[in-house]
């Protein structure tokens, strides 16, 4: 079974649990915290992936870390994962849960890459246009990428709306190389 499948199962279960116990918001915030922690600490990830470190040690590490910071449901979930020997997939599970959460809220993530920082007005316009296009709520993340030379790139799920200058130049290059020029 592939990792994505396993992560999906655990995340779905957690989602169902929050629906039953009506703890959606708290748990979601907790999971965000867990993701941030894992993201910021490479050592923690190494520890979780390591087959040498005994399960009990990992259990106590995670418990000590999150005991006072997250709700009981979330802590028990993390402990449950360690018990099932799936701690190396914790980051995947957490990510997948957040994806499900977004789906549940009707939210889509969009990444915007631009050369310069966009102005507030531009950001507002972009947001409303994208929400119109996708018919969903859009959470925008902004990135600066000077390699695109000019314009911007919008990445929504698997689709890319490429309005960058780099892409235009690439297309132009391809067209000129393919010999479509008619010389008279």
């Amino acid at each position: 079974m592939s990792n994505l499948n396993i992560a999906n199962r655990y995340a779905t279960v957690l989602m169902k649990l929050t629906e039953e116990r009506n703890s959606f918001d708290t748990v979601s915030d907790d999971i965000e915290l867990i993701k941030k922690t894992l993201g910021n600490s490479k050592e923690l990830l190494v520890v979780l992936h390591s087959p040498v470190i005994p399960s009990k040690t990992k259990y106590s590490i995670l418990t000590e870390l999150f005991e006072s910071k997250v709700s009981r449901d979330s802590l028990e979930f993390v402990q449950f994962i360690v018990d099932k020997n799936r701690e190396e997939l914790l980051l995947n599970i957490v990510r997948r849960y957040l994806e499900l959460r977004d789906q549940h809220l009707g939210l889509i993530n969009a990444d915007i890459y631009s050369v310069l920082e966009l102005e507030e007005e531009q950001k507002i316009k972009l947001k409303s246009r994208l929400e119109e296009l996708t018919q969903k709520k859009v959470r925008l993340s902004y990135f600066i990428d000077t390699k695109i030379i000019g314009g911007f790139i919008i990445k929504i799920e698997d689709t890319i709306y490429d309005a960058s200058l780099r892409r235009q130049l690439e297309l132009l290059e391809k067209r000129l190389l393919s010999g479509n020029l008619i010389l008279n």
Partner: protein
Amino acid sequence: MAEVRPDEVSAILRKQLAGFDNEVDIYDVGTVLQIGDGIARVYGLSKVMAGELVEFPNDVYGMVLNLEEDSVGCVIFGDYTLIKEGDTVKRTKRVASFPVGDAMLGRVVNPLGVPLDGKGPVHTEQFLPIERKAYGVIARQPVKQALQTGITAIDAMIPIGRGQRELIIGDRQTGKTSVAIDTIINQKRTHTKESMENGIRPVYCIYVAIGQKSSTIAQVVAKLHEQGAMDYTTVIVASASDSAPLQFISPYSGATMGEYFRDNGKDALVIYDDLSKQAAAYRELSLLLRRPPGREAYPGDVFYLHSRLLERASKLSDAEGGGSLTALPIIETQQGDVSAYIPTNVISITDGQIYLEPNLFNAGVRPAINVGISVSRVGGNAQNKAMRKVAGSLKLDLAQYRELESFAKFGSDLDKATQKTLSKGARLVELLKQGLYQPAPVENQIVSVFIGTNDYLETIRIDDVKRFEKEFIEYVELKYNDIFEKIRIEKALSDTIINSIKKVAEEFLPKFKRSESVALV
């Protein structure tokens, strides 16, 4: 010295680039999760369709074959070492296509249309998808015209029609490819003005080499060039060193090329050499894509692999243009086992088979066709009427000979009738032997079979039979060429022609110089 002024340059550039639209480019992407052995697993590409072409970095293309819950399995056409994990994969929103057109004739290309013969790019206008659905029942008509292979044994007893699928099956080194090449060489006759006047349409040939040694393929191409056959032939090559995906799609590319001719009212012949290697390549792909293995580790749809390929060979109705595509698939058996998985599959799909046996080959009967078990389900319907008349008794005589063959060692202890059958049969077998790359025109074949079945060879030693045939044909060509002309034009054996052949035979018999005194074997 002429100079190009800067404003000229900018004016031209402006003109050329004026049509360049700079709209937002929208494309769907995915990320490579896993890459190896010519297969890539891609995450994302949520809207991709099965069989679609996708683009990897460094101008490598792949085809989507597996659509799974969380990933997409693609096969890669080309060098998969140029791709690494984490690379972005783009949808091209089109299916794999093959360039078709008359410019393809005479060229050697790979299954994606890239030329391999070093003669520059191929300029075609049309691209047809490699995977196409075969025509339905209404668009077809029964096979009625003959496809002359030039091999007497085949044209007489296992006749092939235009639009038929005839399997060439046998062990290794029994002459399968040679039968195919002789057929291609023989189609040269259909491209002459004379045959067009006689109502015989030209046949365009496509030879698909799947998984063969490049040296063998080079030999075949050289032979075709030598015989002047490359003018109407396209060779599609997926050699043994090419990746499994290329070997897998190469027959489909050949079928696409053939369909171009068929759909334009012309006749085409496609030879798949050989389909056993395509099945093995498909097995390799399927196992790497983690599809469940079935019998002999082949995937469950290996029958569909061949059936959809061979169904594309058909004879179209006059409403659709009357074109045809004949297929000659080749299958290699292991130690004569025709009841193995792939051979039985393909036998049940094709309209007949030509068995080539190593015993016959080693005994000197070449082409090593076992006439007893070779079949053509189209049969006499697609045969030249003249040939049908003379071939009727040929098959019967050979069948009787085979029955009595085991008694041949008793020699003179047998009764007269048995002896006669044996001697006639032996001479007919000798008559049907043919040299390599020497396809015979249909009128020569008819005359040869005629003298064989009408006992004119009775007094000739077996060793002299081939020489007798050769000299007799030369004699007729020299002195009575009108007989050949009449057969060519009328395409039937009227009594006048029969009588003239008989007369000439009687005239020639005493003139023939036998190698020793008349000693019947």
